């Protein structure tokens, strides 16, 4: 990458876009969401209004901003040089997401390897937490209710299969796009979305099951916290990924993308693979081991 795009296929001009009002609208939306959420969490009425308004504004802003981008892209504004920028941008964005998950994985490992065993050590037993023994899953020494942990080989295993296959289908779609086989592209992209949605459906079912039958809740100590926050953030990312796939799907249907020019497709595919890899980590460390 030493020379960047600057040596070979150098374009004469880089597309520097025009001013637009979407960024400030995005900030306003986030601001309203933050204020709304603060009100909701502190049990003040009116918070939901701010929150809902913020979310709608954010969605509208994204719709318009991406709309502009798509128009520009289809209008041929973006050459190889801009394309490379998008690739760098997306890669580092995904990297930052990886680090976000790393924080939560860190919390999981900390609880399993450090804090729970520590709380069960001799001196902690003597002075603070009589009778607490180290085991995982654990909801900590102060937790009195009974709960059952989530097994790995039921729904989670199925979900693993679903996500892994969706990784395959999206790759097939990508390959078809490059070969110009639009029908296969559309079909496999559709499969990918279906698999993603199935995954989410099962996850919702699993959560309901956890709450109603296993007595496993967000408030079930360290186990509940790490379980729900990790799988929850992952689920949120799957949702975003599925929405992105859907957008791409409709673009494919309307004939967007060329075999050699389809960054948006690839960006989404990368994102989907990232979500996939995170799930593998979850499956191994949250459900299985």
């Amino acid at each position, binding site marked *: 990458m030493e020379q960047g795009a600057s040596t070979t296929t150098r374009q004469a001009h880089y597309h520097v876009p025009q001013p637009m009002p979407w960024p400030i609208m995005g900030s306003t939306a986030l601001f309203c969401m933050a204020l709304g959420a603060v009100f909701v969490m502190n049990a003040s009425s009116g918070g939901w209004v701010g929150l809902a308004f913020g979310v709608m504004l954010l969605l509208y802003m994204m719709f318009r901003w991406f709309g502009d981008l798509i128009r520009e892209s289809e209008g041929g504004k973006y050459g190889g040089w801009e394309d490379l920028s998008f690739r760098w941008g997306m890669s580092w964005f995904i990297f930052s997401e990886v680090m*976000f998950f790393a924080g939560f994985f860190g919390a999981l490992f900390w609880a399993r390897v450090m804090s729970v065993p520590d709380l069960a050590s001799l001196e902690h037993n003597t002075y603070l937490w009589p009778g607490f023994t180290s085991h995982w899953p654990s909801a900590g020494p102060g937790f009195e209710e009974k709960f059952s942990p989530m097994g790995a080989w039921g729904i989670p295993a199925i979900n693993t299969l679903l996500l892994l296959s969706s990784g395959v289908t999206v790759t097939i779609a990508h390959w078809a796009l490059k070969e110009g086989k639009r029908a296969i592209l559309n079909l496999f992209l559709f499969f990918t979305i279906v698999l993603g949605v199935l995954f989410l459906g099962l996850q919702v079912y699993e959560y309901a099951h956890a709450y109603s039958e296993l007595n496993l809740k967000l408030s079930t100590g360290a186990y509940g916290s790490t379980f729900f926050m990790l799988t929850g953030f992952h689920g949120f990312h799957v949702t975003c990924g599925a929405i992105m796939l859907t957008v791409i799907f409709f673009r494919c249907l309307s004939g967007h993308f060329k075999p050699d020019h389809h960054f948006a497709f690839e960006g989404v595919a990368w994102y989907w693979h990232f979500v996939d890899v995170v799930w593998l980590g979850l499956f191994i460390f949250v459900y299985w081991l």
Partner: protein
Amino acid sequence: MSAVIDTHGHAHDHHGGYGGVMRWITTTNHKDIGTLYLWFSFIMFMVGGVMALAIRLELFSPGIQFFNPDLFNQFTTMHGLIMVFGAIMPAFVGFANWQIPMMIGAPDMAFARLNNWSFWLLPFAASLLVISFFTPGGAPGVGWTLYAPLTVQMGVGMDLTIFAVHLLGMSSILGSINIITTILNMRAPGMNLMRMPLFCWTWLITAYLLVAAMPVLAGAVTMSLTDRHFGTSFFNAAGGGDPVLYQHIFWFFGHPEVYIIALPAFGVVSQVIPAFSRKPLFGYASMVYATSAIAILSFIVWAHHMYTVGMPVQGQLFFMYATTLIAIPTGVKVFNWVATMWQGSLTFETPMLFAIGFLFLFTLGGFTGLVLSLVPIDIQLHDTYYVVAHFHYVMVAGALFAAFAGIYFWLPKWTGRMYDETLGKWHFWLTMIFFNITFFVQHFLGLAGMPRRIPDYPLMFESWNKVSSIGAFGFGLAQLLFLYVVLKAIRSGAKAPERPWEGADSLEWTHLPTPVPYHTFETPPVLK
């Protein structure tokens, strides 16, 4: 400049479709955005500075004079947060915006609209921080480190602060993705990486630090949020969590963060010192390697902020050794700067004065850092004013001085006007003297055992606190002079010559007129 691409709308005016305020709100021009960042950062510096003065006012004498302890803690917290996230970081992003495209011969940042968003997240985040003062219970009084489980006891202001941190983090992540992409992909032909001005290098590496560290902070505060409101037990022993976990996650972000503050400052100084020494930067390549080494090491030293939480002895030793190692690459930098001055042909305009002030005092702060990195000594000094003195030496005399140097250095380029050299020198000397009066004595306070974050103190600490408080007010007044100097330059400064600094040789000086036009390098410059 004729065959420009259509989107610039050169047919009507320079700035695309919008005029008036909307021009600033919607702008995609890196120079506009750079200006916005710089003014925003200065305003935040005032706000954070006023809080610092409130702290120093209360600490002028023992006893509770002006602010109740709760409010005092809120000032301390917000002073730290605002200075770090609102003043220093945005200032350097402002420099990055102005300088990087010009220095590498690019037409603009790689993602110009995203760039606008990165900036426009900040005022909203800052508003959340300021609003928190006016909520029931006020702003959080937990320290800028937001340690759990004290955060759980706080009121509404805590939630606002958490969301503000999310927005600030988003801004930094988007901004750094932009900077990385710009540097990797937008260089003019022939501007290979090892020819880039060092400022671009330090920012490239800083941007990597940001993308890696900021999301972790976002995670940490998110856990605090759910611990507060949704019954999770990340930081609660009764649920099997651990308050110390918060500290690990925070400092995994927090230590790289201090180099996020320091590296761009190193970059500025690496431009200024050669220019006024009329001599190329000594050891360019080793500067690049040293910067990278600092960045990598910064991820494995975080627990030196936590020597007293009770880690196993192996942990303490590991983090102590790793921390001391940072002295080596930082030393390389210091030596390179001194070697650049050696045998040069030096002049001492204001930017150079600030650069020398930086060099001298930052190194002093680095040495106190080294003292703190040694576990037994840190166990004495942790959470005392010695630490406060240490980090103000590296952050104020380090980062802030470098920012001043950069402003005086590039102001002529940006505005086409010279600042008043005499007043600039006054600003430097007042800043320098009052800085030391304020913060040098805090080393003594720390050694003698004054804890930080206290609104009132035992009598034996009175004299140094008085000295420090007087220094702080002097320091603050000197910054009013700075504002005056800048405004005066913009409104009525003498016209700047094409190349005001003889020794400056990066692209913005050699390939662009003064002041720089609104659009530059739409056609990449030709480099020899």
